[in-house]
């Protein structure tokens, strides 16, 4: 119970900070909508729906990347991460709190982006939506870990995409597969498996990411 209340306090703190600073969510919303608008005009007439689903995933991954790049900025301003790391709570609670807050931002961006996608491009069925939700979990779990790793270095903007994008490829494959394959369930299984494995790995390794050697 203490672990969960620590996670809740840390998530609430991130949401409150964003509500006041408005640094992350407006940027994510603007990016995802403008990307979909550009794709709408860039796709030639008669292009199949498969290409559109691929583009949706390009928009989702890069929108998430934008949010992740800012995820640990409040902790690095004023060195707050040091006081979190010294607290007697389980350090993985810091990662989980950040993961949940990032998930909220990503879901909020998608609440606008997915209806826009349906309006401009193609319908999304239940399997495709389940794929988006499962991929979101993986993106935020892995992304929060690598964003913490990148934020500790000087070349944060360069390091984060280098670390995150290769790890996001299975999520893109799973997300697109769930949307276009007649056997979308297989891809949902792949995404669920990815989420389970990488969430456990991220949870277990976060302590080593935030502890200086």
């Amino acid at each position, binding site marked *: 119970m*203490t672990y969960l*209340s*620590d996670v809740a*306090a*840390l998530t609430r*703190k991130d949401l*409150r*900070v964003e509500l*006041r*600073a408005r640094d992350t969510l407006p940027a994510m919303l603007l990016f995802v909508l403008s990307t979909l608008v550009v794709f709408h005009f860039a796709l030639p007439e008669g292009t199949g729906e498969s290409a559109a689903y691929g583009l949706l995933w390009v928009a989702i991954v890069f929108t998430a990347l934008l949010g992740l790049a800012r995820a640990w900025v*409040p902790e690095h*301003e*004023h*060195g*707050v991460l*040091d*006081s*979190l*790391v*010294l*607290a*007697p*709570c389980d350090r993985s609670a810091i990662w989980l709190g950040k993961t949940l807050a990032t998930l909220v931002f990503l879901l909020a961006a998608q609440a606008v982006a997915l209806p826009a996608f349906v309006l401009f491009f193609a319908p999304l069925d239940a399997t495709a939506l389940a794929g988006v939700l499962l991929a979101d979990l993986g993106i935020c779990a892995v992304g929060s870990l690598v964003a913490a790793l990148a934020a500790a270095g000087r070349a944060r903007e360069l390091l984060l995409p280098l670390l995150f994008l290769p790890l996001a490829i299975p999520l893109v494959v799973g997300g697109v597969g769930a949307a276009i394959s007649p056997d979308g369930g297989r891809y949902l299984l792949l995404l669920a498996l990815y989420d389970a494995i990488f969430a456990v790995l991220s949870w277990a390794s976060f302590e080593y990411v935030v502890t*200086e*050697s």
Partner: protein
Amino acid sequence: MIRATGIEKRFGRRRVLRGVDVELDRAGLLLVTGPNGSGKTTLLRILAGLTAPTRGALEVAVDRGRLGYLAHEPLVYRELTALENLDLFGRLYRVPERRERIGMLLERFGLWDARNERVAAFSRGMQQRLALCRTLLHEPELLVLDEPYAGLDDAGSSLLDRELEELAGSRALVVSSHDPERLGPLASGRLVLA
């Protein structure tokens, strides 16, 4: 409380600390002095467990939850109010009777009237007072304070003098300072870094 022998720290090829020995009992104040770049902050980060020494043996006989660390930066969220910051850290540090303790510290450090203001709107001195509240919130047994007087006005400095005098009798303190005269009478030991 602390026993460190032969502490060395390197950042790449640059050696910041060499052969530093530290010994501190359960009560007392160790004053760490030295010019800029002599490694005071690095040593304090090592003692707080925030960075590991490259070489040497370090024993700190206290859990990290019983340690209070004050850095150059206030280590609080700019977008949260003073009250929200202390409430968050009070929860994470398992402070019993959290609200009462927070209220008492805000009163003592003259921040009660500003408790609902965002830290981003605080002056440097107010941020330092809030940082001191955060450091003392969980009544730590070991206090590691890096330049605690930085940014404080005369009233704030006098307040801190009284706090340190009180704490030095019952807690272990490691304090770095550019003003050794101020803390000299309180110090039970001195460490001069070159």
